[in-house]
């Protein structure tokens, strides 16, 4: 698995359910960031030349490679629009949700 996934948060019932130390283990993600989004990126795969500029510059790392195509993890995309603005082919469009 290349990136951490959303983890269901269970309210601790016993002292053993709490993490040792002040934090849970690395990559423990009970919350999503999708609620921050007003505009969502939509990729036009015919225009995309797979230059991976969006993959490099996504502040949240939500753009992934998927067999020669780019794919966006909508659970953690905040809709900032950096990918659409930086795309040399304008293959990504920001659409209001």
């Amino acid at each position, binding site marked *: 698995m290349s990136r951490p996934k959303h983890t269901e948060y269970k309210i601790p019932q016993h002292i053993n359910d709490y993490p040792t130390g002040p934090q849970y283990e690395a990559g423990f993600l009970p919350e*999503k960031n999708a609620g921050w989004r007003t505009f969502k990126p939509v990729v036009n795969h015919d225009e995309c030349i797979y230059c991976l500029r969006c993959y490099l510059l996504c502040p949240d790392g939500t753009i992934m490679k998927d067999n020669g195509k780019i794919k966006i993890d909508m659970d953690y995309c905040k809709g900032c629009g950096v990918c659409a603005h930086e795309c040399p082919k304008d293959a990504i469009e920001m659409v209001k949700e």
Partner: protein
Amino acid sequence: MTKVLDIPKVNAKNMTEKEFFYGHKACAGCGGSIAVRLALKVLGERTYSALPAGCMSAVGFIYPQMAFNSNAIITTFPGSASMAAGIAAGAKALGQKDFKTVVFAGDGGTADIGFQALSGMIDRNDDVLYICYDNEAYMNTGIQKSGLTPYGTKTTTTPAGKNIPGTITHKKNLFEIIAAHDIAYAATASIGYPQDFINKVNKAKHVKGATFIHVYASCPTGWGTPTETSVEIAKDAVDAGLIFLAEYEDGEYKLNRNPKEFKSVEEYLKKQGRFKHMSDADIQCVIENRDKKWERMRKNWL
């Protein structure tokens, strides 16, 4: 020292698929998180990160969310470099091999508060990579002026008015101060040139001893820019000559980018809310300071 040619190249095509800074709560379009994410991807899984108080520790460790996917710790504000030096020494004492210790500190945590610990770390030549992501003010606490805030910036502690155009001091020459320690490797970068930044982190990864990278990272919230332009604005700063890309290695300065003509400074400044109030005389002051600096750099570093 490792030769540059022996270091395997890292780029978007061959870098690891794994994400080590994921699900964080940084503002949309955050430039600092691009810098942290790319650096961690280049450094790989066997990395210890130390983060002082600042945006990246505030957004990465919001309980119960744990955005860092490799070892990371919040340090004291002034002691991030000494704590990282301790981590590196501890890991070495445990016999660990093939690891890197890295600090991600903001401009305040580097140039003002964390400075003496950083100076000590370079003096002892501890095996730590210190990355300063420079968003030109204390953004996490609500935009206060730091030592790296440029002339004319409007912050909450240096408000712009009729008599004073916001900040009246120029940016500290942090890169040259660090280089004056005779450090093994130091560099400046910008997230507007991501491949250049990746190359520099990759080079620092393979240098044994203290290394330092000063990366210019935009902040849409503090700078008053639209979220989608945060990479463009970091590129514009380099093209306008206000930020330079340079390296210091083996006692030699190297200017990576020496443009024949600069882009318009005024255009760069007027894109941002923090510079909106600046008069023509203030802009002229910025340009004069830039030209003076470039004249010195071209004379001594080329």
